[in-house]
C-alpha cells in the first residue's frame, strides 16, 4: 500500500456552490494544456443566433443578479440546446445563453453566462488545482440543482428527486439506504458535518432532524484541526448568506453561489486548507477534497456522460420536461481538486477528453471513497456508489517536503 494511503487517517470534503469547471478552472488550459479547459473558441448561440464566445471576464460579483437556471428543465436546455427528449438526441452544450435569457437576463446580459475567471483572480482554487490533483472528469451527480446533488454526497442517491423539495425519506428507504455518516457510526468510525454557523445552517435538514449530534460549526472544525481532534470523515458547508455576525460584524457568504462574492469563497477555501496545512500531523494524514455541488447554470463545454441508473425514476411531471428521468445521465462538470502532500504537483486526472484513460467521478464517489477507506467490506452503498470511481489511489508513496507545499497568506 502506498505510504500516502497507509498514513491516511482523515478525509475532509468541502463542497462549494454552483460554479462550473470551465467557469472557474477553464482559463488554466492556456498554461496547463492537460487541464481540459477552454481554448477561447468555445461558443453558444444567443437568442438572435449570434455565436458568443467564452471570455475571461468573469467578475467577483454583479454579473449574475439574475440567478442562472440550474433546475432540471433549464439544465436540459443547456445540455441539449433545446432539442426535446427522445432517441438520438445529442448533448451539444449549446443552450446556456438561451437558458440564461429565460431568467430575466435579456439581450447582452445573457452573454455573461459564457464568462470565465482569469486564473489569477481566484488564486486559491487555481493554485490548488495546479499544485495537487485536478479532476477533468468530475460531474454533478444529476443534471439539476443543489439539494439532490448534495444528497449523492451524503447518501449515494437522491431517492428519485431532481428538484429542491425536501425529500422526507420514508423509514423504509432510510433503513435501506443510510447516510455515509450513519454507516461510519455503525462501523465505529467518527464523522462530522460542519456547517458554517447557525444563521447559515446546513442544507442537510433531514439529518439535522434525525441526529443533531452529527453536526458542528466551522469554528469547531478550526478548533478540531488545531487540537488534532478531527474525525475520520468531515464534510464542510460554507456560509450560505450575508448576515450579521455574533459580535455585530458582517459575515459575507463564502459559498460562491451567484451572486455572492467569489473571492470571499476563494479566501474561505484557503482558510480550510491552511487549517489542515498548519498542523503538521494533520497535514500528512489528511486528504482534502474541494468540490462544487453543481454547475449553477454556468457554461461548460464537456457533455456529461451516461451513468449507471440508480433504480429510481423521476416522473415527467417532476422533471418539468414531461419526460421521465432514470438517473442514467450525470450532471454538468464541476471543479474538483484533491489535496495531499502525497500527490505529485500538477496531477491531472483525465476525463472524457481521453477515452482510453478517462476516469469519471461524481458525488457518489465521495461516500464510495470514504467507505472503501474506513469501512472496507461495508456493502450498504447504493448502486451508484458501488459503480463510482474512488480517488485515494492518487495518494502515492512520496511525501512532498514541507517547503514544497504552499501556504496561503490571507
Amino acid at each position, binding site marked *: 500500500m502506498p505510504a500516502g494511503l497507509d498514513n491516511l487517517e482523515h478525509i475532509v470534503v468541502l463542497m462549494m*456552490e454552483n460554479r462550473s469547471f470551465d467557469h472557474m478552472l477553464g482559463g488554466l488550459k492556456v498554461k496547463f494544456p492537460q487541464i481540459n479547459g477552454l481554448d477561447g473558441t468555445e461558443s453558444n448561440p444567443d437568442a438572435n443566433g449570434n455565436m458568443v464566445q467564452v471570455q475571461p471576464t468573469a467578475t*467577483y*460579483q454583479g454579473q449574475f443578479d439574475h*440567478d442562472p437556471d440550474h*433546475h432540471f428543465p433549464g439544465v436540459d436546455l443547456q445540455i441539449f440546446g433545446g432539442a426535446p427528449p427522445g432517441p438520438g438526441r445529442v448533448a451539444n452544450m449549446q443552450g446556456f445563453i438561451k437558458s440564461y435569457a429565460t431568467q430575466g437576463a435579456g439581450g447582452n446580459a445573457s452573454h455573461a453566462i459564457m464568462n470565465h475567471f482569469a486564473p489569477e483572480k481566484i*488564486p486559491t482554487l487555481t*493554485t490548488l488545482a495546479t499544485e495537487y490533483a485536478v479532476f477533468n472528469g468530475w460531474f454533478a451527480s444529476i443534471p439539476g*440543482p*443543489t*439539494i439532490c446533488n448534495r444528497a449523492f454526497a451524503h447518501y449515494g442517491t437522491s*431517492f428519485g428527486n431532481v*428538484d*429542491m*423539495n*425536501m*425529500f*422526507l*425519506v*420514508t*423509514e423504509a*428507504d432510510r433503513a435501506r439506504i443510510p447516510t455515509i455518516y450513519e454507516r461510519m457510526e455503525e462501523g465505529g468510525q467518527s464523522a462530522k458535518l460542519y456547517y458554517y454557523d*447557525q*444563521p*447559515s*445552517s446546513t442544507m442537510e*435538514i433531514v439529518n*439535522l*432532524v*434525525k441526529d*443533531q*449530534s452529527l*453536526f458542528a460549526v466551522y469554528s469547531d472544525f478550526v478548533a478540531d484541526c488545531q487540537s488534532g481532534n478531527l474525525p475520520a470523515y468531515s464534510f464542510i458547508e460554507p456560509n*450560505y*448568506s*450575508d*448576515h*450579521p455576525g455574533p459580535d455585530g460584524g*458582517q459575515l*459575507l*457568504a463564502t459559498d460562491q*453561489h*451567484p*451572486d455572492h*462574492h467569489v*473571492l*470571499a469563497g*476563494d479566501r474561505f477555501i484557503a482558510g480550510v486548507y*491552511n487549517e489542515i496545512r*498548519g498542523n503538521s500531523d494533520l497535514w500528512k494524514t489528511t486528504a482534502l477534497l474541494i468540490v462544487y455541488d453543481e454547475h449553477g447554470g454556468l457554461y461548460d463545454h464537456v457533455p456529461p456522460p451516461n451513468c449507471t441508473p440508480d433504480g429510481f425514476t*423521476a*416522473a415527467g*411531471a*417532476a422533471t418539468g420536461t414531461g419526460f421521465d428521468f432514470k438517473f442514467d445521465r450525470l450532471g454538468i462538470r464541476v471543479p474538483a481538486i484533491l489535496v495531499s502532500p502525497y500527490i505529485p504537483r500538477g496531477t491531472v486526472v483525465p476525463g472524457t477528453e481521453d477515452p482510453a484513460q478517462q476516469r469519471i467521478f461524481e458525488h457518489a464517489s465521495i461516500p464510495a471513497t470514504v467507505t472503501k477507506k474506513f469501512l472496507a467490506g461495508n456493502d450498504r452503498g447504493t448502486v451508484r456508489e458501488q459503480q463510482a470511481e474512488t480517488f485515494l489511489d492518487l495518494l502515492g508513496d512520496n511525501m512532498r517536503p514541507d*517547503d*514544497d*507545499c*504552499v*501556504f*496561503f*497568506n490571507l
Partner: protein
Amino acid sequence: MAQKYALTKEVPKFDDQAAYNHDRPISSLIRAQLLHLHTAENLVLPRKARTGININHLLTERQASEYIQKVTSLLHQNGKAGNRKVRAAGYAKTAGKGSKRARKAGVGRA
C-alpha cells in the same frame, strides 16, 4: 499560525463592506432551505416551541438567516431534550409534492 512557510501564495483582501448586502433577495436555494426548516419545525417541535413565523414574508438574506438560526437552534435544543420522535404519519415521502403540513401552513414550493 507562527510557523514560517517557504512556499506561500498571497490571496488578496478586498472591500468586504462593499460586497456585503444582507438585503439581497434570497436565492431559490435559501428559499428551499427555509421551506425545509419550516417543514422540520412543524414535524418535530412541540406546538408551543415553534416559531410561528410565516416564511413567505422572509425575502432577504438577513431575514432568512434570522429564521434559519432560530429553527436550527430549536432543533438542536429539541434533540438534546430527547424529544426527537418524529411523527411517522407526517414523515412519509410524497414524491414531488411537498408535505401536507407545508401546504396547510401556506408555504409555497421553493
